[in-house]
């Protein structure tokens, strides 16, 4: 017994000593594999094994398993890196000098513009591009939209009547009866939370203002945050919404059907005069150098963005496809909300340039 | 034979020992004696190899071992804290060195039991955990462990100082017995002069990183080479200038230097002297008397000096403590230091 134990420790010790030298050899296995992959597809071209490494924030909740099944059937050999939108973006940016991903999808246009800045995308025109409305094609063929998201204010009609309901985000802070009863973001890490703030800020664009926003806009955001209710980590905001303790909130389009079903409410959507922030989850082929063979990646984009796949995808997981031929497959509730709301006109390039500063300013100075 | 020449050990800028020269013969019991911080342990640890000397050489049988790795020196060592391995049984502690030599199991067991006999440990104790033993037993284990590989030289670093007085005396004798039985060369560090006098063949007295004197116990006691040695070994009475002047008056030649310091061992101050003795009589008063059974000590005031004297209680001497008494000091017993 004693000797075995000692042996284990000893061998572990030697492993440590070897770690430095051996780490090289170890490393070669996976890294080497990747190289082989790249080499194969370069040589093979037509590609029997079409390996695609996807980076995405849209793989949770069973999506990855579903995509994997379909993709394997379609002849793809898939690998995934997943995380939150910001995390995936950070990872893509960090790896800029030696990109690993073949395809990135799921992040919004602001994030894809950041990838464009770092020259992390290559041009490719998918064969379904004709089915996309022209105004949704803002990526210079470097990226293309898949699913539309809208972020909007909503209220629970059980507790708030139509007359009482606010007509715009910044009205909330002035309404006596809703002090502390409307949900505001507690943190700005998530995309939806950021959009709530953007919904106010983007109404006050002013070239001379601080970071392109008029002082009035900043004041409105500050008041909006100061008089709202930050959901503590433990509480479920939808539960609060359903129970009426916090009957005013905001949400993203794709999540509404599930939320309504699970928590038992029927949300009323507010469509302010400027419209609701509408962003689109994009897909793009990652730039891995001039002599890289992009065939498999391009085929994946063609396949995944096609009307057929998008229809199947939103039937399974909800969401509003940008692809016009697939819109009808979206859940009825989503189509209904989409009709009730107007997309707000947003200059995503302008947003992308300033978003991080805005968020930081709000976090540092305006959050209570 | 161990020969140490011009040994110096530095800790950063501090010179712990300087110019230490020693010759230790095979099979002898050699003691390094001195107060704490005097350099005796430093010397021992240099021999063991735990410290690297900055200068000098340590020759064992003609071979300089200064650069030999510790484990290749083939020495035995016994520590003040015993340094038994707490994760091993008594048996394993003793067998440790043998296992390193890759002795067979049977050989190891035989040797361990032989050693257990030597240091008087029983079989039950061999199976115990070391912390379940008493201090004396732990030290026996440490001795057995150090002797396991039959080293010809064994180093002792104050091995008995953690034990009580009685046990210390007992183990001291046993050490001497074991040393004689095994014929090993023992280098022994202690600050206890009684211990040193009792068991040593030769003693080196250390002070402030230097050797003050090397000699047999008797030489060191009777002919202490320095004031430090004189005061450190045994009990010595300091003689004040007035008393020295008084003694000088009784002498015709070889008078003492009044500027020097003078001492006399307490047992060398007598109440009676035989006919023809050259001892100088001085008169004094008894301040205090302590009875010890076989002897008594008296503190006497003589001129500017307080003398402690020893009187055997064998019925031959009667002292009336109320009266003035006469003491005799033989000039040849007076030790003189310094005063140039």
């Amino acid at each position, binding site marked *: 017994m004693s000797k075995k134990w000692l042996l284990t420790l000893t061998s572990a010790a030697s492993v*440590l000593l070897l770690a430095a030298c051996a780490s090289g050899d170890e490393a070669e296995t*996976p890294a080497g594999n990747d190289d082989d992959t790249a080499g194969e597809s370069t040589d093979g071209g037509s590609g029997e094994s079409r390996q695609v490494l996807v980076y995405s924030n849209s793989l949770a909740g069973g999506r990855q398993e579903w995509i994997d099944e379909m993709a394997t059937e379609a002849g793809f050999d898939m690998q995934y890196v997943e995380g939150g939108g910001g995390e995936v973006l950070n990872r893509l940016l960090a790896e800029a000098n030696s990109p690993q991903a073949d395809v990135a999808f799921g992040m919004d246009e602001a994030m894809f513009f950041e990838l464009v800045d770092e020259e992390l995308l290559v041009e490719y025109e998918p064969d379904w591009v004709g089915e996309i409305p022209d105004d949704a094609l803002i990526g210079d063929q470097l990226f293309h939209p898949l699913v539309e998201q809208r972020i909007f204010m909503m209220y629970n009609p059980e507790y708030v009547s139509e007359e009482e309901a606010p007509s715009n985000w910044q009205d909330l802070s002035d309404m006596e009866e809703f002090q502390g009863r409307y949900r505001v973001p507690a943190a700005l890490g998530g995309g939806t939370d950021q959009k709530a703030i953007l919904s106010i800020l983007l109404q006050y664009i002013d070239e001379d203002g601080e970071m392109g926003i008029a002082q009035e806009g900043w004041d409105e955001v500050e008041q909006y945050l100061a008089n709202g209710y930050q959901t503590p980590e*433990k509480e479920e905001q939808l539960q609060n919404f359903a129970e009426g303790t916090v009957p005013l909130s905001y949400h993203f389009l794709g999540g509404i059907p599930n939320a309504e079903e*699970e928590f038992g409410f029927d949300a009323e959507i507010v469509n302010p005069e400027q419209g609701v922030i509408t962003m689109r989850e994009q897909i793009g082929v990652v730039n891995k150098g001039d002599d890289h063979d992009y065939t498999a990646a391009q085929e994946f984009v063609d396949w995944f963005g096609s009307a057929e796949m998008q229809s199947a995808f939103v039937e399974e997981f909800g969401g509003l496809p940008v692809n016009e031929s697939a819109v009808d497959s979206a859940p009825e509730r989503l189509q209904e909300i989409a009709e009730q709301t107007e997309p707000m006109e947003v200059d995503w390039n302008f947003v992308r340039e300033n978003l991080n500063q805005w968020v930081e300013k709000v976090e540092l100075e305006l959050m209570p | 034979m161990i020969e140490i020449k011009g040994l110096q050990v530095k800790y950063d800028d501090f010179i712990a020992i300087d110019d230490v020269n020693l010759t230790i013969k095979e099979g002898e019991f050699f003691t390094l004696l001195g107060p704490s911080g005097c350099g005796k342990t430093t010397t021992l640890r240099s021999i063991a190899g735990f410290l690297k000397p900055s200068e000098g050489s340590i020759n064992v049988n003609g071979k300089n071992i200064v650069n030999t790795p510790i484990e290749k020196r083939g020495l035995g060592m016994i520590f003040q804290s015993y*340094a038994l391995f707490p994760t091993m049984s008594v048996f394993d502690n003793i067998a440790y060195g043998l296992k390193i030599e890759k002795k067979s199991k*049977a050989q190891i067991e035989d040797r361990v039991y032989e050693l257990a006999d030597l240091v008087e440990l029983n079989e039950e104790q061999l199976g115990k955990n070391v*912390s379940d033993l008493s201090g004396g037993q732990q030290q026996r284990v440490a001795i057995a462990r150090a002797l396991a590989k039959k080293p010809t030289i064994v180093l002792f670093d104050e091995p008995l100082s953690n034990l009580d007085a009685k046990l210390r005396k007992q183990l001291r004798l046993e050490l001497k017995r074991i040393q004689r039985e095994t014929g090993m060369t023992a280098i022994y560090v202690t600050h206890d002069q009684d211990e040193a006098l009792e068991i040593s063949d030769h003693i080196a007295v250390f002070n402030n990183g230097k050797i003050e004197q090397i000699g047999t116990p008797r030489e060191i006691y009777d002919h202490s080479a320095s004031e430090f040695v004189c005061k450190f070994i045994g009990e010595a009475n300091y003689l004040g200038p007035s008393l020295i002047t008084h003694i000088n008056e009784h002498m015709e030649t070889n008078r003492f230097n009044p500027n020097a310091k003078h001492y006399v061992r307490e047992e060398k101050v007598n109440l009676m002297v035989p006919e023809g003795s050259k001892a100088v009589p001085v008169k004094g008063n008894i301040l205090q008397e302590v009875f010890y059974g076989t002897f008594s000590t008296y503190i006497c005031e003589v001129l500017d000096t307080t003398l402690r004297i020893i009187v055997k209680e064998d019925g031959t001497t009667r002292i009336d403590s109320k009266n003035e008494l006469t003491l005799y000091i033989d000039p040849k017993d007076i030790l003189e230091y310094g005063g140039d």
Partner: protein
Amino acid sequence: MMNSRLLKMKESNLLAKIPFYLFCLFIAWFIFALLIWPNVNVLVDIFWVDGELSLSAFGRLSGSNRAIRAILNSFLLATVLTVTVNIVGTFIVLVTEYFDIKGARILRVGFMSTLVFSGMVLNNGYLYVYGQNGVLTNIFTRILPNLEPTWFTGFPAVLFVMTFACTTNHMLFFRNGVKGLDNNTIEAAKNLGSSQWQVLKDVVFPTLFPIIMTLVIMSFQLGLGAMAAPIMVGGSFETISPLILSFTQRPSSRDLAALLSIILGIAQIILLVVMTRNEKKGNYMSISKTKTRVTKQKIENKVANIVVHALSYILFVIYTIPLILVILFSFMNLQGISQSTLSLDYFTLENYRAILTNNTNYGPLLTSAVYAGGAAVLAVLFMIMIARIVMKNKNNKLAEWTEYLFYIPWLLPGLMLALGLIISYDSPSFLLLGNSVIGSVWILPLVYLIMMLPSTLRYIKGAYYSFDNNLEDASRILGSSPIRTFLRIILPALLPTALALVALNFNNFLADYDLSAFLYHPAYPTIGITIRRNADAANNVNAAAVNLVYSVIIMAVSSIMFYVVYGRGSKMGEKKSGIRNSRRRIKAPVIVTGLGDTGVDDPATGEKA
């Protein structure tokens, strides 16, 4: 001739030292390539904007009331927490190990629960008791109708939760200090007429002073770095760590994160220097002399005895109820969980069924276990060697600096270190022997390992102080080579501490998400990634329930780890005596551990093997 012999000797000496020099070279490489270079690069990347040094972060931070308040809050929390945690920690250790308290074993299990029950889950558990709809809140509101149901929030709530959540180190390290006390000294003090309180004050605490100092500083650090409690129960009481995390995740705000993190790091390093000074003054622990095991002291004063018993059981309830509720709630459906209501109507096994039958969970769990386990073992072994070199050369400036350099990971958050590694090695580099970190499987465990180093080194060093240097000398002079001495003598002596650290490190990184998301290899997702995928609130309305179930599963895995490594493992180390193979069959002994050891008994029962 003499000369050539000398030369020969020197050569063989040199030859024997080659492994050591190679190891030194390895250390130098490790420090430069993995600690200094990546961090320098990431700091340059962050603070060097358009070719010049940008220190706007200072202005932006000092202009932010929120950030300033968070910094002050963190220091306030750290200061008060140091007092409360040490009082509670000392108390629970004394009642389980020092005083004779009835039911000490069951108490011990409760007090040890924080080893696996920590972070967000723990706070969740406390909210089931004290939060809105919490068990206790319901009782309170019945008695005091005016009480706000959300009373459990802010600084007092954070302090309360963390006071009980942060006693883990006490139960590991202080506990074994107490167990390693010499009973004789206690008896001697009593003999001299000391009251029980005086014995504690004059003998026990002074003897354990080095451990107490370490724990004081560790609790201060826990307070400074508080993350879960402020998020979960802090309400408007915000601290630095959550801010650092959100700033780190946004490239343009990383300078803020770095600055805040460096503020925290410097506070930690200052404390560390104070502690190191303190250590150099020496410690009072006697070991390897005759020592008898502490016998439990019966509290003589009857009133005091009743009060201490009562307090012990009240604490036990405080510790265990949240844990029990978490386990119970993991069997509730979403309604039950979101309303914090326990009821058979809401009972469901569906959550467990869904997770346990989902095969895609097991691969990632294995990956995480291998990553966290491998990194934990290597980190501990590596730091044992470093600590040894540092302790052997206490007066050597180079060794001192080497030690401090290994505390670098305390200065920046893990994510930033990861970023630094990527920036430095995103293409094959000669510093990594021609490797690049991107796309490699080993970067994630490597970052885990690096993040484990500082606290591991801290505790290992503490354990070395209890190690009698004479043991090493004794082994060497008996003919054992330095390597053999290390393996046979030093390692076994440090084993209990080492195993505890392996288990702690493992648990800390098992369910990691933030680093994983940034670094994991596509072929080997970790359990943190899987949990997020299945429990993301945006995609799964059932997220809360799924999270709870995963938490319970992770706790179970951690408990097993603790039991196997720390409980059984130390027992095995303890039984290593080869004498049992002896012809004459002599029973193997049990060792008593010294200071800084983390004990050799079963943490669950306290039973000796």
